[in-house]
């Protein structure tokens, strides 16, 4: 489904990604782990099309289509979804209006009719329940005054509404207490499907206890330095990143789990 070949990307002239290769098939869940500053978030942002990052070399394709030719909104319509590490607060735009506009943009792209306000309200309320978010949050400004956990649930709510082909979850577990982590994980697991791939970017292994990945990759210094199965995450938890010859400025992953 997603194919990344020799991807190089830089920001303000500094190269962050230095030749990423990654293949993800439909139905698979991949986890990318790595220390801070390894390029994990950059990879997520580049996949979504953030123009702050310049792709200097390499290819990204989604089901054979060259993603690098597409604008951010076109990538989203082709099925790329990024759950933000720091979801943006937009006062003055209601969450409901935002969600309906997004869903209708997708529907229009697929040649379907737009949902009217009443139809959408019904759908949004149902999906809110799935992520344990009070429907009152639909009426507030986008993420406005939401707690960290509420923002993350609002991201998963969007993923469930937009039904992407590839969902990229950027540090979705960060800042969550154990209850919120379970709710969010439940939402992500509800996304798992044969025709959908999930890419989880995380510093810590604890999320992987709830959402079990098929493949784990270690990103360090802008390259994938090791790939393996689920057991690789467990090994990282036990041994840290040091044995891979990778420096981590922070504590070893296990310290925070």
């Amino acid at each position, binding site marked *: 489904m997603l194919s990344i070949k020799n991807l190089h990307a830089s920001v303000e002239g500094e190269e962050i990604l230095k030749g990423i290769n990654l293949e993800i098939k439909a139905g698979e869940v991949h986890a990318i782990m790595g220390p801070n500053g390894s390029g994990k978030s950059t990879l997520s942002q580049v996949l*979504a*099309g*953030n*123009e702050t990052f310049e792709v200097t070399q390499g290819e990204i394709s989604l089901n054979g289509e060259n993603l690098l030719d597409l*604008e*951010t*909104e076109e990538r*989203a*319509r082709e099925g790329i*979804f*990024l759950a*933000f590490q720091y*979801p*943006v607060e*937009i*006062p*003055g*735009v209601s969450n409901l*209006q*935002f969600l309906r*506009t*997004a869903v209708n*943009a*997708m529907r229009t*792209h697929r040649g379907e009719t737009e949902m009217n306000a009443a139809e959408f309200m019904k759908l949004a309320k149902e999906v809110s329940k799935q992520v344990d978010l009070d429907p009152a949050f639909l009426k507030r*400004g*986008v993420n406005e005054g939401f707690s960290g956990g509420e923002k993350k649930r609002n991201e998963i709510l*969007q993923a469930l509404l*937009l039904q992407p082909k590839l969902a990229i979850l950027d540090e979705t577990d960060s800042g969550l207490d154990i209850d919120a982590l379970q709710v969010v994980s439940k939402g992500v697991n509800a996304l798992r499907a044969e025709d959908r791939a999930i890419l989880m970017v995380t510093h810590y292994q604890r999320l992987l206890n709830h959402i079990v990945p098929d493949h784990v990759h270690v990103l360090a210094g802008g390259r994938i330095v090791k790939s393996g199965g689920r057991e690789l995450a467990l090994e990282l938890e036990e041994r840290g990143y040091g044995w891979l010859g990778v420096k981590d400025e922070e504590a070893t992953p296990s310290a925070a789990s």
Partner: protein
Amino acid sequence: MKPAPTISSAFLEPGGQSLPAPLLELRKQRGTALVDMPLPTRKTENWKYSSRHLKLTDELASTLPATGKDGYSLSIPGYRVVFHNGVMIPEASDFPDLDGIRIQRFADLDDDEAAGLAERLDNTLDTRAVQMARLNSARFEDGLYIQLDKEAVLDQPLFIVHEVTGTASGSAYPRIYVDAARHSQITVVEEYLSSGEEPVMVDTVTEFVLADGAQVTNVRLVMEGENVQHIGATGVRQAANSRFESHCVGFGGPLRRHDLQVRLEGEGGECKLNGVVVTQGKQHYDNHTSIEHVAAHCDSEETYRNIAADESHAVFNGRIHIHEDAQKSNANMNNKNLLLSTGAEIDTKPELEIYADDVKCAHGATIGQLDRISLFYLVSRGIGRREANTLLTMAFINELVEQIPVQAVKDAAQLRLNEFFDQTFQEA
């Protein structure tokens, strides 16, 4: 040194023949006083940014003929008064004959009423600061005098539609005077429209006098075309416990200028001034507001938002003057500005003069652009650029648009805003 330019004598031709004698007399006096009136220049502080957009050519001096044959096919709910080229058109107007409320055109006033009005016209304005209102006083051909007896309540908004037609060059000088007695209530909507292509100037003055406990809401929608220089002044005097609300929504033109002056003269008075300005192309819009806290225990709240696209220019000058005896005044002024292009310019100046020592007075002004991260967030959900920019720009003014108390104005403003968004924002 070159002497400051003065107003052309072409602007001082006699007219106003349909006015009752006392008003005609007043007009003549005001005209005489205008001879050699210096025009605002770059060095005139309150016209610093706008004087170069004020073009008083002799062609503009002629009074536009009021044929009453144009426009006003607007579907306006409720009561309406139509002015065409500064003159009221009775056939197009439709307003109530209610107990305690008199709505009369100047031409229909008897001499006693006209004499009473003539004594009070201009009383709400500091005409040194609003030079162009003086030209209106010397040139008005007609006007509307609204009187509310005590406790009279107008049950629906009164729409006053000011339309000018630029089939030939000229100017129009509409004039409104509202006298709201104790505990009376009225909502007045002023809508400024135009048709035609030739250069036209609209120089308009609206005055509100609120007695104790009166409640007046003024909605002002400025939507004239690219051929129209619009210069407006609104003067307000408030007695004790009265409340005045103003909602101005304006779209730019070669020159748009509005001076809004409010005097809180009795304890317990409140005013709320909201403004939204949108400019594009090479348009220019200048809002000058002044709130005088003369009496103690009054509240004022002012919120203005400017949005400037392309190479347009918006100006906001907000003055708050708290007099020595105005203890326990509560004044709040906020002006936020959004630049949609690198060629646009916005100048904002809060001007606070505080002579009392026990007051609360807050002000804030910001100038910024649309937030790139917010935009990325929206488009990353598949929302198109045009729509994402529109959502973010609407978010900037939503709060003020929502507060407009008249749905028909909200709808008209939204339609015009949508045109602006279509012209300003492109898909990637």
